[in-house]
């Protein structure tokens, strides 16, 4: 479905170049659920942005359903039904939540349809639909609207960047259910970047990215048992290869 070949990404800082992603090779199969985790600054969001076309890789290629999309811009990728929920979503002065969601749907939807969507991210729609997507929204509210913009789009590939960040327990539970349903429907390849064990446990496969490299890609159960063992003994073996020391233990 999505293949990443020998991909590197570096930025110029002063007169030296800093490698942010180093020779990444990954294969994502259609309609599977992937979780990407790893330490802060490891390169997860950068990888997501390269996949979405928001930043251009320095080397390597990206293939979607057999098509080389490396040279395509964001809009073209969006039209191929790829989507990305930002880790830090922007705010828009003068945009109502309704306007932003209609743009996401690609057509004007009626109030009921918008409400249904907002319920999937645990927002009570009537209160929100006519509010501005500006500084008046709380961090968690904004984050949930951001997730809704991606859910609205009927995607073949959906990437969510730390969807759990700043979200309360009740909405988080709702979100977990939403991802589960999405996965059950088997129409979308899901990639979720997360530090939450509960989300990692939803995935078919877990990928650990650290230091700009893929440290590991394995079936969920194989990787999760190792991470949990690490956390229990307080040692940091997995962290040496991946570093998910801050994965929260299940209660």
């Amino acid at each position, binding site marked *: 479905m999505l293949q990443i070949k020998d991909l590197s990404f570096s930025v110029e800082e002063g007169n030296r170049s800093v490698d942010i992603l180093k020779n990444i090779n990954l294969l994502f199969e259609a309609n599977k659920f992937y979780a990407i985790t790893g330490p802060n600054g490891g390169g997860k969001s950068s990888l997501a942005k390269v996949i*979405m076309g928001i930043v251009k890789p320095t080397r390597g290629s990206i293939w979607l359903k057999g098509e080389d999309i490396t040279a395509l811009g964001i809009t073209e990728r969006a039209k191929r039904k790829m*989507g990305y929920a930002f880790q830090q979503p922007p705010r828009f*002065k003068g945009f109502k939540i309704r*306007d932003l969601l209609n*743009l996401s749907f690609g057509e004007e939807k009626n109030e009921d349809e918008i409400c249904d969507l907002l319920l999937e991210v645990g927002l009570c729609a009537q209160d929100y639909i006519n509010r501005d997507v500006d500084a008046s929204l709380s961090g968690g509210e904004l984050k949930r609207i951001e997730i809704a*913009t991606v859910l609205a*789009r009927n995607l073949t590939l959906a990437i969510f960047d730390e969807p759990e960040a700043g979200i309360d327990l009740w909405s988080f539970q709702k979100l977990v259910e939403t991802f589960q349903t999405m996965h059950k429907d088997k129409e979308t390849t899901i990639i979720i970047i997360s530090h939450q064990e509960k989300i990692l446990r939803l995935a078919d496969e877990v990928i650990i990215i650290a230091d700009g490299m893929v440290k590991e890609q394995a079936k969920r159960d194989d990787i999760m048992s190792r991470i949990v063992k690490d956390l229990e003994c307080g040692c940091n073996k997995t962290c040496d290869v991946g570093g998910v020391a801050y994965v929260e233990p299940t209660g």
Partner: protein
Amino acid sequence: MLSQLDKKLLEMVADLHEIPQGAYNIRKNGAGLSRNTTGNIDIVNKTDKSGIDIIVKPGTVDESIHIPVILSQAGLQDLVYNSFDIGEGSDVVIVAGCGIHNGGKENSQHDGLHDFIVRKGAKMRYVEKHYGEGDGKGKKILNPKTIITVEEDGVAEIELVQIKGVDQTIRDTEVYLHDNARLIVTERLLTYANQEAESKITVELLGKDSTAQIISRSVAQDQSKQIFYLNMLGKNQCRGHIQCDSIIMDQAVVRAVPEISAYHTDAQLIHEAAIGKIASEQILKLMSLGLSEEEAEEKILEGFLK
């Protein structure tokens, strides 16, 4: 009686498709074109100069007054004085606005001096839209001067909009607020090409518990220039808030000159001003929803100026 051109101008400045309901006075090329008064709203010509007096009887509610001005004759310099007396306890909407079509070489100019008294407990919403069109070389110039006094418990909501086609404008607005009077000004301004716009708003909070809020948003494109002088003076226990927000593009120039002055220890005044280009994250986000870069930019500006 109205030509197609007149109708278009009226639609742009007053959202009018037909002759309006209620009281109105339509001025075209420097002279009155048609007028209607109601039992509660009277409109009479000034005797000493060009212009009208609009008198709203106390207690008039849910009525509107349309006073659009249209200029379609190139080279015309129109100067008009209008006075509004909004009677105690009334609640009315006034839609003003000026549309210029200039297809000629010479400048067309409309200067309007409006003074308002919003009497005790009255509420007035005043909407003023400015619009220009026509591809003649002559400039379309609009210079409104507005003076508003709001008496005890009165409310004035002012919407000032200039979205298209005005080459030069100097807009000067003065407001005087008495006890418990409330003011909300919403300003929207778009300039492009070589247009120049200057907006000066001065609010004196004279009365106890008077409140004022100015929300000014503008977009400057191409080589256009904008200057804002927004000033609030707190002379009693009062609250005032200015938000001045501009998006700058291309080679435009925007200056915002904020001023707040307090003459009373219980005056609370806030000024926020920001100038910047469209945040690239906003464009990237909309592109990731399938919009092109141009469409994304258009949507962002459209929302910002709404």
